[in-house]
């Protein structure tokens, strides 16, 4: 229809490329939502990892504490000799007596050495006889030959052709068998394994010195009244350096318990309150100060700022700070700091952890899983303000809990420098179980990622 087309065309031609600038706050909202989304994702990942680590540790603990754990079983090493019709290579000076391996077998009875050979048994024995230079008794050899021949006849009738050396050894203690270099290495390794096992079974103590770079990310929530007069949270995390002494008791081959005394620091940065959230009808002062303002509450003669980690009680105002008072406003506070400034709330803690660790690899390199709880004692509480005049202390955060609890989990990497010294790098995630602040309007629960780096001494 012509008229339909005409109407469509009217709207299309005029509105097809229609543009209009959206209000500026739309972009602010987008940024806020994106930041909130990122935080939410990170918290979800942290929670999931925490649960996974707890389940894994519980599983490993249960597995470890199972009765009748066949601890002494070592997988048998199979010595393969794929020689076909080739003669046994002659290795001068490499021949050893089978009796040398008997101490290993005494400490680990399940240990077996199996010789798999395609070569007829008589040939092996023959070569052993001819190349044997010492330690064999000719009389016993003669006794052994008929036995071995009978056995080789049996083997020929079967397809496996396996020869159990231990069975042979029962008959012939003095018989020496020539072994290749690889076989010698295996025997040595097995001896070592058996030796290590008995050494590691006893518990021992370790002390360590650690330094800990920690990256802490704020995760807070506030009630609406608090948030409406609050400074703008810095959003990003802060990097702080801590450290201390660790004490560890290794209770078994895999499990150990560790504690210690650590110093750690948390810092929460926030900026001026964004002007569009403030309900001021009028802000006096020079134009350049109008945007930057921070709401201040005056209560019982004290100046208070609602900051992102809790209420800051001011006992000092730095040089260059401008104030505006008695503003006309219904919802917001009537006093305002009118200068571009950043606020920092710092908290220092002494922490005592109680961690369990489960060793997964114990060689020159050690690898283990860690999990546990920490008790943190607040020893420092300061608030700072950064403005054009520099950084100045302005007071402290009210209502902070003196003791706070957190959970930690992570993994530990170790490198043995000597028998007693070990380099350690333990990346760990820490999540506070409750708010660090007692104020009912604020929930301040940061989480942090720290790399405990240092040296352990075993004694």
């Amino acid at each position, binding site marked *: 229809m012509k008229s339909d087309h005409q*109407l*469509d065309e009217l709207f299309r031609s005029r*509105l097809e490329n229609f543009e*209009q600038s959206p209000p500026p706050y739309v972009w602010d909202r*987008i940024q806020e*939502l994106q930041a909130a989304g990122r935080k939410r994702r990170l918290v979800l990942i942290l929670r999931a990892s925490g649960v996974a680590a707890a389940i894994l540790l519980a599983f490993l603990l249960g597995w470890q504490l199972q009765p009748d754990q066949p601890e002494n079983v070592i997988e048998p090493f199979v010595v393969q000799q794929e020689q076909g019709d080739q003669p046994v290579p002659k290795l001068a000076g490499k021949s050893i007596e089978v009796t040398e391996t008997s101490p290993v077998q005494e400490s680990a009875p399940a240990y077996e050495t199996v010789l798999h050979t395609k070569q007829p048994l008589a040939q092996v024995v023959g070569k052993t006889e001819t190349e044997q230079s010492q330690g064999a008794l000719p009389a016993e050899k003669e006794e052994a030959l008929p036995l071995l021949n009978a056995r080789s006849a049996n083997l020929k009738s079967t397809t496996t052709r396996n020869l159990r050396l231990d069975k042979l050894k029962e008959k012939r203690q003095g018989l020496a068998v020539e072994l290749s270099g690889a076989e010698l290495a295996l025997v040595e390794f097995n001896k070592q394994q058996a030796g290590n096992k008995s050494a590691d079974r006893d518990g021992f103590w370790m002390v360590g010195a650690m330094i800990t770079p920690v990256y802490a990310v704020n995760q807070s929530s506030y009630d609406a009244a608090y948030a409406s007069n609050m400074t703008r949270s810095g959003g990003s995390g802060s990097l702080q350096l801590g450290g201390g002494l660790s004490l560890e008791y290794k209770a078994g081959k895999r499990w150990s318990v560790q504690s210690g005394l650590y110093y750690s620091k948390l810092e929460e940065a926030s900026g001026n309150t964004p002007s569009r959230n403030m309900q001021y009808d009028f802000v006096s002062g020079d134009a350049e100060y109008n945007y930057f303002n921070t709401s201040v509450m005056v209560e019982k003669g004290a100046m208070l700022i609602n900051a992102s980690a809790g209420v800051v009680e001011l006992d000092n105002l730095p040089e260059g700070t401008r104030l505006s008072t008695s503003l006309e406003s219904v919802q917001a506070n009537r006093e305002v700091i009118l200068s571009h400034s950043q606020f920092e709330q710092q908290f220092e803690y002494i922490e005592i952890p109680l961690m369990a660790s489960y060793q997964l690899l114990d060689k020159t390199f050690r690898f283990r899983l860690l999990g546990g709880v920490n008790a943190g004692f607040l020893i420092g509480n300061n608030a700072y303000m950064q403005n054009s005049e520099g950084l100045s202390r302005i007071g402290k955060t009210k209502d902070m809990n003196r003791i706070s609890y957190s959970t930690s989990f992570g993994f530990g990497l170790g490198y043995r420098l000597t028998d007693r010294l070990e380099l350690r790098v333990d990346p760990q995630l820490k999540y506070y179980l409750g708010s660090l602040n007692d104020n009912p309007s604020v929930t301040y629960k940061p989480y942090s990622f720290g790399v405990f780096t240092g040296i352990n001494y075993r004694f």
Partner: protein
Amino acid sequence: MEDLRQLITDCAAGKTGAQARLYQLFAPKMYGVCLRYSKDQTEAEDNLQDGFIKVFEKIGTFRHEGSFEGWVRRIMVNVSLEKYRKQHLLHPVDDMTKFDVPDFKDEILAEIATQDLLKLIQELPPRYRMVFNLYVFEGMNHKEIAGEMKITEGTSKSNLARARMILQKKVVKCFEETENNYPA
């Protein structure tokens, strides 16, 4: 063109500065699109906001094949449609026969203001607004519209006819008011 490609790559890497530039570049045009699909400015702002959050989430999947503006626009339209589906699921289905719409006089086209036309679209009942937008501005046929909106083709046709009829009447009325208020 190369600049836009770089901008898209930076946005995909999560660079806030790049995202701000991309927003500045496309927000006015996309706000125009959202306004057409919404009943008022507030709804359009919400859709624009949700649309851009989706754009930044999915920008890594853009393969640089075809128009990026078209891609962003499609996201805005989808966000508007999703919101419509959530809010207006229980609208009664009505089928109407064809309406005859009288021809316009040429002077109407010149006189009427763009903002007034936008307002007329925004005042349409939600489903008529959606169908009219998808048909006229996105160039979809009734089969495609029916698929997008989970309605029948017949409903789509009758909704479009209804939308046209309402707009037609309002355009004429709007023109008459303009004539009366500002006599030549």
